[in-house]
């Protein structure tokens, strides 16, 4: 469902993403882990069509993102790490804007949007401007907006940040439910506990390169210890570790 080959992104002299090869299946929840500055957000933005890669290919639902960005974008939804919305629009107007941008049927999207708002506990806030929303409410509205066009791929950058325990649980359940319906979920995370419970597979990114990918057990085994995921992650990404060194084994 998502496939990248030799993905490369540079900012001046800095190589943020360095020859990344990824392959995600339909219905899979893939967690992207890595220290700050590893290149996770740049990768996610390239997958969402927000940044153009300097080299390499991206295919979303079989469509080349560089050659046909519009078609590729119509299959995916992206939620940024900071849930920024137009503060002058109300919650309902935001959903109507998204429906218009994706060319959805107004009557159908109106009903589905109302159900999504209700599902996220935002019904009473639909007519309020998003500038008055709390961080968690904006995050939930972003989810509602992302799901409105029923995407085949969800790309989420740190989706759990700023959510209360109930909200966090609701999102986890939602992601699992989407995955069970065949939606591919690609998310970056810092909370390893959530990654362990939520993700089918994990990829560890460091200095723009994919150090390792696999199930939690495979990663623990590759780290060569009986530690938990946190210990494995730390030992893998520790500066000086053979894998973390530039040119190390991937």
């Amino acid at each position, binding site marked *: 469902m998502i496939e990248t080959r030799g993905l490369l992104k540079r900012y001046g002299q800095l190589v943020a993403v360095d020859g990344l090869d990824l392959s995600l299946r339909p219905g899979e929840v893939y967690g992207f882990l890595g220290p700050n500055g590893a290149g996770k957000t740049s990768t996610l933005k390239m997958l969402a069509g927000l940044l153009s890669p300097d080299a390499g290919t991206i295919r979303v639902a079989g469509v080349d993102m560089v050659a046909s*960005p519009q078609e590729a974008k119509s299959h995916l939804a992206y939620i940024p790490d900071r849930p920024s919305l137009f503060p002058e629009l109300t919650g309902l107007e935001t959903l109507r804007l998204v429906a*218009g*941008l994706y060319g959805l049927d107004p009557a159908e999207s109106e009903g589905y949007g109302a159900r999504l708002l209700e599902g996220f506990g935002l019904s009473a806030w639909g007519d309020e401007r998003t500038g008055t929303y709390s961080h968690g409410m904006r995050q939930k509205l972003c989810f509602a907006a992302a799901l409105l066009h029923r995407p085949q791929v969800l790309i989420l950058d740190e989706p759990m940040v700023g959510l209360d325990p109930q909200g966090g649980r609701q999102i986890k359940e939602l992601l699992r439910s989407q995955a069970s319906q065949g939606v591919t979920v690609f998310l970056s995370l810092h909370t390893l506990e959530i990654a362990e419970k939520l993700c089918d597979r994990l990829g560890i990114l460091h200095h723009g390169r994919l150090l390792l990918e696999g199930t939690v057990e495979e990663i623990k085994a590759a780290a060569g210890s009986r530690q938990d995921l946190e210990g494995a992650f730390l030992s893998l990404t520790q500066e000086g570790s053979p894998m973390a060194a530039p040119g190390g084994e991937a």
Partner: protein
Amino acid sequence: MSWADLTQALWLIVRLELKPRLGAWRRWQAGEWARACAGLLVAFVFLALVYGLLRPTFGFLARQEGLGPLLIARLSQVLFLVFFSMQALSQLITSLSALFLDRGLELLLATPLAPRRLFLARFMRSWAASAWMVALLWVPVALAMQRALGGGAAFVLWALACLVGLSFWGAGLSTLVLLASLRLVAPGRLRRAMTLVFALMACALVLVVRAMQPEKLTNAGNTMAAAEWLRQFRLPQPGWLPSAMAANALDGFHNDPAAGLGWMALLWLGGLALLLAVALWGGRAYLPLWLRTRDAGGGKEPARGGPWEGLLGRLWARPRGWVASLCLQEAARTLRRDTQRLQFLFLGTLVGIFLFNLARLPMQDPEVASLHDPLFIASAGLSCLVLLAVAARFAFPAQSLEGEASWLLRTAPISSARYLAWRWLGTLALLSGLGLLLFGSCVLALKPSPRLLLAGLLVMLTAPMAITSLCVGLGAAWGRPDMENPEDMVTGGSGLLLLTLAGLYLLLSLGLLVPPLGELSRLAISHRFTPRWAALLLPAACWLLLQATAVALPMRYGHQALARGQGA
């Protein structure tokens, strides 16, 4: 307030403001340095143009026997009043932001740093921020005056000292007004109150223009009338106003040095005393006021709905595609955002003043008949500048106004080319409508010759397209979604570059029309039908090429930047 407070405040400015900027400059790459050099070059050209315009004006005024000193004195009064207003207004806006709305204040006030020291640092920073550009603009004015009146380098320094003294008053009075106002209203509301103040100021400007009755000067044959007008003309400013003090101090340099020195002492000592009073009072009142504004919601208070809310609600409820959705989003953002409404007010006033004064020109006077064509050229040029001002205020910062929410639009299945084309067409429609109104008014009021009518029509049909392209394309390429007030883009370096490019385009566009139109006139007068093709076709071809380039290049530049993911 002690010496330690002052040194600590200066340390804060160096540590928090200057060092990070110096660090950022060190990390600049070739492209950023090139842009900065281009900006500096544009600023230098702009200042040189101001000097080039004022130098002959002051020279001409100084040569008028009997009236010369009076004319210069009146002009310096007007200039000081304008500079004082600019600086005071700028201080009001920058200090509101620096002292109360800045997101970093929460972190700074949570440290053991004494609030009075933070106030002092931010107050000094606001003064520097509001005064430097005004002082820089004053340099060519002072140099032009010195060339016309003499006095050497001492006069230039004296004139600069007048402006610095004036800036103390501007900073002190504005900050006092700000602190006093915030005891009554929250910062968010104060912004809206400032909208009302600007509206009143705009009305006052119209009244001042009417009080001056400039149309009397169009009676060019009667110099006595002009002289009488000048003698009767008094600016509505009493002698104790800081701008009048500065004008008196400057006037005294040549005419009465003792009085000049006295005014200068009053200006500086009074200004410094005012700054000290503000520092003492503000230092004590700052923390309680800041806490109060936080309780009131800071600057995040959403704008209240206006009379257009019902219409917007009905439009949102209708079936729509991406074009209608984007239009509605743009309309909602424009109508519900205080700063955007303020822009509307400014531009509405600009158009109103233009049309009002056009209607008041005494065109029936037979002595003015010969001025129809020159006045038409000036009015058509002004119309183009009004269009440029509208596009620069609305279309240029539009990309940046999307802010961090731009991901919603950029991840949607709409190509950046289609998105830019939508913005271009929307802006062009509005600009063409406004252009038609202004141009039609000029034609009706001034009844130009057919040759000028044709030239004006050509410019009015093409200028909106090029101006829209420049503002939309460059606005996308130079967009700054992280800016707190994207509306300020037009007054920054990129805005200056845009205005210079647009000004160059307008000059070239008009200049290239002159030879073919002249040739057509020659043919019409001589009744010959063998044109000089080189004079007719070459400039016309260059003119067409200019139009095509001015429309296509900026849009291509903007599209490439968006496709690369600039600002994402």
